[in-house]
């Protein structure tokens, strides 16, 4: 006996009621995944909010709006095919490590606040 379900996703899988071995869906049966980014306010940076399944970018946008912009403020939404994102994965996180005592290589290593304030003050004074 195959399990009959109102849910086409279940019916399509033709699961037996006796419980066979775990099935695998054939390739391309599932839609691609898209990553969703949203902008909470104009001018903000897009923030990754999650992913979804869709057959193409238009439908991905259609779904993204309801999935990720329904319960919070949003002014713009981006979708990107997951396959189009190239990444250095967390398995390789150690390549981001650096030896101690090299603060000068990081932005926070520069102490320029005082110089900048002095420059601005001088400039504003000369403009007056």
């Amino acid at each position: 006996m195959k399990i009959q379900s109102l849910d086409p996703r279940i019916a399509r899988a033709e699961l037996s009621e006796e419980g066979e071995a775990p099935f695998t869906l054939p390739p391309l049966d599932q839609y691609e995944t898209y990553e969703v980014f949203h902008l909470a306010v104009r001018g903000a940076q897009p923030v990754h909010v999650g992913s979804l399944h869709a057959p193409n970018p238009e439908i991905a946008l259609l779904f993204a709006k309801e999935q990720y912009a329904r319960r919070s403020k949003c002014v713009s939404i981006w979708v990107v095919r997951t396959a189009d994102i190239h990444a250095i994965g967390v398995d390789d996180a150690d390549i981001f490590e650096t030896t101690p005592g090299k603060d000068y290589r990081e932005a926070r290593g520069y102490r320029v606040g005082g110089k900048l304030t002095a420059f601005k003050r001088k400039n504003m004074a000369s403009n007056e």
Partner: protein
Amino acid sequence: MNEHAALKDLLYRIADDELIIAHRNSEWTGLGPILEEDIAFSSIAQDKLGHSHALYEILHTLGEPEADTTAFTRDERRFRCCHLVEYPIGAYDFSLMRHFMFDTAEHLRFDMLEHSTFEPLARLAVKIRGEIRYHIFHANTWIAQLGMQGSEESHARMQGALNDVLPLALGIFEPSEFEEELAADGIFPGEKALQERWLETIVPTVERAGLRMPGLAAITPAYGGRRGFHTSYLAPLLAEMTEVFRIDPSAEW
């Protein structure tokens, strides 16, 4: 003569359409073709329910009963919805085509109502504009996708759905006895004007989707709903929709 009779009739027509299509579309919740579409379509149904509630609230300010009473206690003959919204959900092609045709008419109707001299309705029209824009985006995207970019089967099914839905959709624009009065008072320009704009809007979308628009001359629009004559589908829907309410009408939610 009943004060505001023309205005109330207009409001009931719009509100009842919104309530019944909301109920029908919500029947897809949990059964949508894929999870993401299920969420989107359910959310659209919920928006429609909100629109009907807002309209029943306006009717309440005109002396009609409270929104819940109006929605859940009237018998079938007092509903003013068109036949289109009463039909069972059928297959997804039918529901999508109904969504496309109904929502386009809804969008154009509220677009006209933004200029209504009846301010509560004009304000509501502005308030729900964004929601309806998404509904239109959703409908148009699917019509284009399944008509043009899908398979032969999807194209054939959308064409079949178009042929089935069109006579029902034309029933949206069943004229009432108040057309001239509403137009003269600047409340609403009328169903005839709306139908013209609707045809101008849907025909290009249908054609871009590679679908063929049937000739209108041979079609009999499904009229009757606006005068309280409904299909046999409405009574069972109302029985189901009001089932919980009738157990205890005084219950606090």
